[in-house]
C-alpha cells in the first residue's frame, strides 16, 4: 500500500512521525481525508479527532485546533494541543465539557461564547478519542 510521511507536532513536542496510509482530519471547511499523492494543500483545523490509518491499524489523536499542510514530500500537522488516546485524562475532559456547557447555557456575558464553544469542542474531541480507545481495548 502506498504511504506518505506524517508529522504531528505541537510547540512542546513532536507527537507523531511515521509513514501512514491515510489521515482524516477536521478542517474548518469540513472533514477531509488525505491519501498518498494528495495535491498541495494548506488548511486550518478545528478541534477534533485525527484518524491515522497505517496497515489496517487505526489510531486517533485529539487535536485542539491548528494547521495542516500537505506538501509533495510529506504532511505536516501543526497542532495547538495534541494528545494520544492513552494520555487523555477523561475526568478532566468531562469536567471541562460540563463547564463549557454551563457557560454556554447560562450565557455569562463576560466569557466569550466563542471561547467556551472552542473549549467544548476540544473536550468533546478528547472524550471521543478516549472512548474509541476504550472500545477497542474491550
Amino acid at each position, binding site marked *: 500500500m502506498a504511504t506518505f510521511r506524517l*508529522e504531528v*507536532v*505541537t*510547540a*512542546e*513536542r*513532536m507527537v507523531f512521525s511515521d509513514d501512514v496510509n491515510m489521515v482524516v482530519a477536521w*478542517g*474548518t*471547511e469540513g472533514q*477531509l481525508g488525505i491519501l498518498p499523492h494528495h*495535491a*498541495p*494543500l*494548506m*488548511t*486550518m483545523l478545528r478541534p477534533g479527532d485525527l484518524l491515522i490509518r497505517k496497515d489496517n491499524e487505526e489510531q486517533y489523536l485529539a487535536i485542539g485546533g491548528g*494547521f495542516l*499542510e500537505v*506538501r*509533495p*514530500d510529506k504532511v*505536516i500537522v*501543526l497542532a*495547538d494541543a495534541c494528545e494520544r488516546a492513552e494520555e487523555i485524562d477523561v475526568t478532566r475532559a468531562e469536567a471541562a465539557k460540563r463547564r463549557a456547557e454551563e457557560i454556554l447555557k447560562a450565557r455569562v456575558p463576560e466569557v466569550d461564547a466563542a471561547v467556551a464553544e472552542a473549549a467544548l469542542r476540544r473536550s468533546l474531541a478528547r472524550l471521543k478519542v478516549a472512548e474509541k480507545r476504550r472500545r477497542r481495548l474491550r
Partner: protein
Amino acid sequence: MATTQIIRRRIRSIEGTAKICKAMEMVATAKMRRAQHQAVAGRPYADKISQVIADLAAQSRVAEAIHPLLQSREVKRIAIVHMTTDRGLCGGLNTNINRLVAGFILEQNLPVTFVTVGRKGRAFMLRAGQKIHAEFTGISDRPTLFETLPISRVVIEDYSNGDFDLAYLAYPRFVTTMVQRAAIEVLLPIEPAKLPPIQAVDYIYEPKPSVVLNELLPRYVEMKVYHAILELVASEQSARMVAMRNASDNAKDLMEHLTLVLNKVRQETITKEICDISGGAGALARR
C-alpha cells in the same frame, strides 16, 4: 598571627557555604536536564512552522499575502524583548545579555522601549534609565506555551498598533551546558526563511490564504517567544550548575589551604610550649 580558634571558625563557615553550593548545584542539575530536554523537544515545531511560512510566503506573492506582521515599515521606534532570569547566582549569564543589549541600543539612533522578562533585566534597564513598555516576572522552571502567551500578545498587539516598528528578541541561547551565548534576533516583522521554494504551483487553501496567514503568523511569534523562554530556562539552570560547581570546588580548595595553615599554627604553638617548658626545666637544673 591568626589564632587556631579564628581559623577553625573560618573553616566551619566555608564548610557551610560549600554545602549550600553543592545543594544548589544538584537542584540546578536536575532542573537543567528537564529544561534541556524541553528546549530540544520544541525544535521540530519551530522548524515546521518556519517551513510552512516559507512555503506560504513563496507561494503567494500576491498583495493579499502582505500581512501586517510580514510588512516592514519605516522604523521610528524599536522594541526589545529582553529576557533574563529572576534569580541570580548563575555566573555571567545576565551580565552578558545585559551588556550585549546595552551595546546594541547605543548603536541605535532611534528611541528604544523594553519588554522585560525576568527581574534581573528589569532592574538593569531601570538603572540604565531605559523606558520599560511592559514587564514580566515569575516564569516557572517548567514553562508552558500558555504561560508565555501574554508576552507574545503584548508584542503583537503593540506592534500592530504602531507603538513600535521593529521588535528584537534578546535572550541567552543555550549552546551547551558550558556555553550560553547572548543573542539578538529580529522578532517582528517576520522574515520568512529563505528556503528553496517547493515546486508545487497551485496550493489549495482552506479557507483563503489571508485567513490562514492571519492565524499562522501570530502563532509563529508565540512559538518564537516560547522557544526563547525555553532556551532561557535551560541556560539559567546550566549556568547556575556550572557556577555552583566552581563555587564548591573553590570552597574545597580554600578549606584544604586553611587546614594546612591551621596545622602549622597548632604545631608552632606546641613547639613554642615545649621550648618554654624545656627552657624552664634547663634553668632549674642549672641551679
